[in-house]
C-alpha cells in the first residue's frame, strides 16, 4: 500500500498503545521516554479513558491526543475540556489526522457537558497555533505566566 493509500483509523486509546505512543514521541522529539508515557497514560486512563484517542495505520500508532474535562482550574468553574498532549507522525502530516483526533475528542468533551475546550500552545510554534486556529480555536484572554525558581 502506498503512503497516499494509508488507511488511518481513529479509535480510543488502550493500554496496549503505550509502546506505540512512546515510539511516536521518540520519532517526533528524538528522545526515548517510556517512563514518562507509562505514568502519563496511566493517569489519563484512570480518569476518563474515552477522552483519549489514537490514530492507527498499518497496526502502528501514527497520532494521539490526550485530554480531559475538568472543572475549577484557574477559576473556570464550568466543565471545560482540556487538550493537553498531542502528537502526529511527521511522515503523515497534512492528512488531517490531527483534525480527526480533535473532532473525536471534542465530541466526547461535549457529551461530558463541556461547553468550551482550551489548550496551551507555545505561540512560537506556528504549526501548532495554525492547527488549532484551523479548528476554530481563538486566543483567549487567560494568559500563561511563568517564573523560574
Amino acid at each position, binding site marked *: 500500500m502506498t503512503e497516499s493509500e494509508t488507511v488511518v483509523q481513529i479509535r480510543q486509546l*488502550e*493500554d*496496549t498503545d*503505550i*509502546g506505540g505512543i512512546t*515510539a511516536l514521541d*521518540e*520519532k517526533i522529539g528524538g528522545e*526515548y521516554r*517510556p517512563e514518562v508515557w*507509562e505514568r502519563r*497514560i*496511566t493517569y489519563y*486512563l*484512570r*480518569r*476518563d*479513558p*474515552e477522552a483519549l484517542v489514537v490514530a492507527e495505520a498499518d497496526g502502528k500508532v501514527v497520532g494521539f491526543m490526550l485530554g480531559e474535562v*475538568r472543572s475549577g482550574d484557574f477559576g473556570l468553574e464550568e466543565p471545560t475540556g482540556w487538550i493537553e498532549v498531542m502528537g502526529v507522525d511527521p511522515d503523515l502530516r497534512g492528512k488531517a489526522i490531527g483534525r480527526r483526533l480533535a473532532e473525536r475528542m471534542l465530541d466526547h468533551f461535549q*457529551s461530558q457537558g463541556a461547553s468550551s475546550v482550551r489548550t496551551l500552545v507555545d505561540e512560537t510554534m506556528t504549526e501548532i497555533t495554525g492547527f488549532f486556529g484551523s479548528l476554530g480555536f481563538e486566543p483567549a484572554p487567560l494568559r500563561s505566566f511563568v517564573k523560574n525558581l
Partner: protein
Amino acid sequence: MSVTKTYLPKRFHQAVVKWQETYLPDFDFLLDNWDKYFPQDTRFELCAFREMGMCSEVECGDRKGKPKFQQAAEMEPQQGGHLLGALKAQASTEFGSIQQHQLTLARAQNEEEQFWILRMMAEELRHGYQMFHLLLEDDWSDVTDQSGPDMVEEILSMQTGSHILGAFNVDFDSFIDNVTFCALIDRVGKYQLSMQRISAYKPMAESMPQMLREEAFHLAAGVVPLRRWMEKAARDSVYITTNDIQKAINKWLPRGLEMFGDERGGGTNVRYGLKPMKNAEAQEQYYQEVGKVVRDLNMRFIRARLPELSLSEAESLLEKLLVDGGSSRGISWEELVHVPHREFFRRRGVPAFKMVGWAGEDFDDAEAYLRHLTRHLPDGYRAGRDFRDYAQMLRRVDSGELTGDEAGRTMPSLRRVGGVCPCSRAVRWVAEEPHGNGSGGNREARR
C-alpha cells in the same frame, strides 16, 4: 449521555459492605490515602451507575432492530436463563478476583503499584455491586426458582474454589500474580464487558460503560508494572526475572482463554442479541491482543538492555531473535517473554486435557506432559492443590477413565480445609449479624 447513580436496598448494601470488611480490609486505608495516589480523581463510591441515552434497539441476532428488553420477563425463558447465567458469572468474577488479590497484595515491592491494585480491587467490588443491582432490580422468577436475595447470598458466600469461572478459583502465589492477572484476566473482562455493552437486555447494556472506563485502568495496572519489571530485568535486577513473568503468563493465559467459553459455542448468545461475537472469534482477538502486549514487553526489555539501539534497530533485533530463536547482541531468545500455544495446559473447551506443550508440541504420555508443565509453571503454583487436581484429572483422562470434556466439568475443585472459614459469616445479612466478626484486616498492606 448522562449517568444515573443508585444504591442497593439497605440490607443488601450493608451485606456488600460487610463482605468488603472481610475480603478487602484495606478499603478504608485506600480512601484515607486516595489523594496521595490519585489526586483530583473522583473519589470511589460504592454504588451502581447506569448510562442513559444508549441504543434502544437490539443490535445483533434474531431480533435485531427491535426494541431492547427493559425487563427479564419480556424475554423468552431460555433467553432470560442465558442472561441470568452470564449475570451471575459476572458477579462471581468481580467478588472472586478481590479474594484472590487480597492473598498477595501485601507482598508488593512498590507502594504505587500496590495502591493501583488496591484501587482496582475497590472498583471490582463496585462491579459486583452493579451486578447485584441488576439481579435485585428485576424479577427473575420466570427463569429461576432462586430469589434475588438468595442469589446475592450465594455469590457472597463463594470462595476461591467455588466461583463459577476457573480463573477465579486459582490462588495467587505472589504479587506477580496480581499484576499478570490484571494484564491477562482483566483483559478478558474488557472483552466480555465490551460485548455486553450491546446486550439486548437494556439494563445490562447501560451498566457496562462505567465498568469499561474503570477496566481501562485495571489493564494499565497490570501492563505498566510488567513493563517496569521487564526494564529492571534487562538491567539484571535480582527481584523479578523475565522467567518469572513468563511462568506467570503460562499460568494465567490458559485460564483467560477458557473464560471465553467453549470454542464451539457462543452462537446462542449472538442469536439472542446478548453478545455480538461467538466465543472463538472473541477468543482469537484476545489471543492476538496478548501477543501485542508480549511484543511490547520484549521491546521494553531490549531497549533497556541496549539503550544505544534506535527504535528500528531494536525492532529488527526482536524480529531476528523471534525468528532465529538464538542469541544476538547479548540477548537470548530465552530471556524474552512469549505467548504460549493456545492449547497449552487447557482444561476446558476444545483442547481440554489434550497434552499440548508450551510451544505446541504434542505429548502422548501424561507423566512426560506433567514434567513438561512443571518446567513452565511457577513453583508456588505447582506446589498447590489446583495443579495437583489437574494432574490427577489428566491421568484419568489419559487412562481412558474420563473424556476431556467430562474432566473439564469437574475442574477446578480447590477445596478449603479446616471447616467453614469464619469469614463466611460476613455474607449473612447485617440485620442478622449485629456484631462484627472481626475482619482480621491485613495491616501488612499499609506500608
